[in-house]
């Protein structure tokens, strides 16, 4: 079935799947957002435990999605994996450290004799929430603003050169951190705006999730207050980023020569030339806004049902305009023609075919996740439940 598809079709299919995973990851970052609200919403130890346990049943989904996103990018676009991870070393390392801290904190925070103390583990959760969300946002923004790297496959064939035989090299010594201070084309503003937008979106989603998941009057009241502020800040950063994205020069690929060049308003053109993507983006944004409306104005607890899928659609559309329609999804500002496109960074036809068969498992995975999630969330979390459970966090 898949073997009959062209290499380009497979690359597009895999870019879609990677984008979907990335989009699901951004939605699932509500766990990270929630971790930065534990002390804001929980004034007593009991309240904080409810919040942590509510998040604690979901954190592994976010974590697993991040790992799978990494694996999928490795398998389908290995040149991206090697160039970005090996180049933007400090950004990825900072994200990874934040996730190490998270993985133990739920399980260890309230266990007796836990060496570092409950407060430390709660701080770990906060750090993960802040750094994880902001830096992932910044990293994604560089898909549109570019980074300073070069790729030359001949490097490994030149044994007499002064260079190491390595094909990808980052051309600034800051290895990724420069994304937050690169002034050319005001890239730092754009990158930081998306980082902060993702961070506040994660908090917004967390607040909506709590409203649906927790049965505790005081906590829910606080989520309602907090939601308005976080939603406003999120919208300011996100709209700033999105509007600027429509105006900046994008990294276009000449379909005949494969040369990369700067095209004014490239990302706006992509939306207009791919109306389906534009519709996905608009439906997504409306979904998020409707979710906010349902919660803030109608005072219902179902906001997450709209804002969650809305987030997924919005991010999906953004990844699509980064990769489709002759666009370089991981551009190099150092050397335009080192930029990565879904065509020049992908795996072979054979590997993408094999992986496409593997992707047929995804609906089953989603089905059992939904089953398990529903089974666990039939009833909202209460203080009594946590205090009677021998395995609460």
């Amino acid at each position, binding site marked *: 079935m898949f073997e009959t598809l062209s290499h380009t079709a497979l690359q597009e299919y895999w870019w879609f799947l990677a984008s979907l995973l990335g989009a699901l990851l951004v939605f699932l970052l509500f766990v990270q957002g929630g971790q930065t609200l534990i002390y804001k919403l929980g004034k007593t130890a009991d309240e904080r435990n409810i919040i942590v346990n509510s998040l604690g049943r979901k954190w592994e989904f976010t974590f697993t999605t991040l790992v799978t996103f990494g694996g999928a990018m490795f398998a389908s676009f290995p040149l991206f994996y090697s*160039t970005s991870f090996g180049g933007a070393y400090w950004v990825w390392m900072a994200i990874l450290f934040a996730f*190490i801290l998270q*993985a133990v904190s*739920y399980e260890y925070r309230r266990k007796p004799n836990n060496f570092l103390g409950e407060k430390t583990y709660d701080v770990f959760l906060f750090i993960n929430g802040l750094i994880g969300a902001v830096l992932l946002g910044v990293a994604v923004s560089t898909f549109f603003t570019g980074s300073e790297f070069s790729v030359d496959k001949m490097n490994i064939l030149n044994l007499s050169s002064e260079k190491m035989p390595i094909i990808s090299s980052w051309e600034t010594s800051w290895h990724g951190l420069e994304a937050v201070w690169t002034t050319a084309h005001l890239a730092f503003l754009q990158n930081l705006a998306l980082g902060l937008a993702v961070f506040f979106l994660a908090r917004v989603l967390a607040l909506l999730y709590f409203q649906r998941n927790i049965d505790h009057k005081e906590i829910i009241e606080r989520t309602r207050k907090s939601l308005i502020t976080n939603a406003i800040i999120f919208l300011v950063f996100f709209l700033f980023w999105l509007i600027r994205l429509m105006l900046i020069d994008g990294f276009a690929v000449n379909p005949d020569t494969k040369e990369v060049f700067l095209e004014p308003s490239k990302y706006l053109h992509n939306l207009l030339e791919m109306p389906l993507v534009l519709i996905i983006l608009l439906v997504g944004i409306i979904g998020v806004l409707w979710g906010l409306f349902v919660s803030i104005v109608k005072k219902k607890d179902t906001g997450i049902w709209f804002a969650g899928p809305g987030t997924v659609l919005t991010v999906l559309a953004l990844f699509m305009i980064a990769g489709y329609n002759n666009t370089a999804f991981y551009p190099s500002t150092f050397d335009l023609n080192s930029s990565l496109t879904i065509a020049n960074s992908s*795996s072979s036809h*054979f*590997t993408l075919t094999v992986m496409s068969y593997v992707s047929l*498992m995804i609906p089953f995975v989603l089905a059992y996740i939904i089953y398990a999630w529903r089974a666990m969330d039939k009833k909202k979390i209460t203080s009594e439940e946590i205090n009677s*459970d021998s395995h609460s966090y």
Partner: protein
Amino acid sequence: MEHIDWGLVDWSRAQFALTALYHWIFVPLTLGLSFIIAIMESIYVKTGNPEWKRITKFWMKLFGINFAIGVATGIILEFEFGTNWSNYSWFVGDIFGAPLAIEGIMAFFLESTFIAIMFFGWKKVSKKMHLWSSWLVAIGSNLSGLWILVANGWMQNPIGMHFNPETVRNEMNNFWEVLFNPVAVNKFLHTISSAYVLAAIFVIGISAWFLIKNRNTALSKKSMIVASVFGFFSILFTIITGDGSAKEVAKHQPMKLAAMEGLYQGQRQAPLTAIGFFSGKTDPNNPEEQKLVFNLEIPSALSYMAFADFDAFVPGIKDLVHGNKEYGIISYQEKIDKGKKAIDALAAYKTAKKENKPEIADTALKIFNENFKYFGYGYYFGKDTQLLVPDVKMSFYSFHIMVALGFYFVLLFILIYLFAYKNKFQNKKWLLWVALWTIPLAYIAQEAGWIVAEVGRQPWVIQDLLPNIAAVSQIDQSSVQITFFLFLAVFTALLIAEIKIMLTQIKKAKISDTNENTGGTK
């Protein structure tokens, strides 16, 4: 021509070794204990005896503490392929990435979804569904083991692929060959069965401590019976697959085998060194060789272990480095020259293609194809061939420690089963202490196994095709040093936390016995 940043290579290796060794402290227990828990819960569901439910929950608690830190160290490993081995990720990403992605889709979601039900679903789903969840966690974690070991096995024996000169990388052309790679199959079976052994020893050791303290005796005896049976069959399987692994090593990585055995001079009817120590002295006339002393040898056993033939020739380190015409072994220098030819021919091919000179390109491609087998050796052109020899002492000692401990575990499982079954531990306190102190030995055996596998294959990241010097990322050595020490500090702090939490949970565990009724796990 000193363009290799050796410090960067060494620190990158150190960082990967650090994360892998830390990760491997936690994973074997997860792999094995998940099955032991599933078996115990099955007994509970079958018999309806609440005692078994409490036993299951107790081990599940320890499982959770251990699982969390395994996850924390695991994420680093996956991303380190990119952050620290970027050239590798690109050179073979077409093959190596697939098992990693499949691991995520097939195994990690299974594990992480059903672990939530396993821990929190006792009152939310039916008994049967809960049991299913526990089994699925065990299956999920073991499946993740399968895929990562398929990936590792492929690095040791790269098959199911070809080199594509257009993209200048290796590409997969047979998925089933990658999956059913005999090195990978043996490695998977050997690794997971050894993990079950560790989990069994963990359960037996802690149960022994309870018996010494005269607490939770019903839990302990029941646990010991389950664990000793599980452990006994696992260790037998570990030994069988270990033998299979040795034969694969002999076939594909003769240098690793020679290093494991400290064999410098190849011979027919090669003896297996059962015990031996390096004297630390070298013969001035023979500086390459390190002498073994106090060694106890089993005649012809190495020939048999490697080739299932008591008379077979086993090449030594010197035969491999300098070549041995009698047995058709070419020297490393010849391989380096051929590798250099392959690299130069590929460069010529690429240039000719660019300049549109098809004839030159064809000739160059022909030379490349003839010499590709030795591609990786080319990176050692003009360098000392001794750089291609792994750390012999480390390989030798790790291998021997692992094997000796493996045979000791067989004996332990038999004794524990006999005494637990006959309920005769009263006068056998010494055996209980031995069982308790075997726990650290099981961890040592595990780590030793990985040291053999990974140190013994140096300097190859991909056997014969990509050495570590051409696999790293282009970053500063100091950056890797900083992250190395950060990892060291964080992992060590978390390990201390894990051990403290676990010991506290064990010490305060009160699982109701027939004589004592304290109302469940607290």
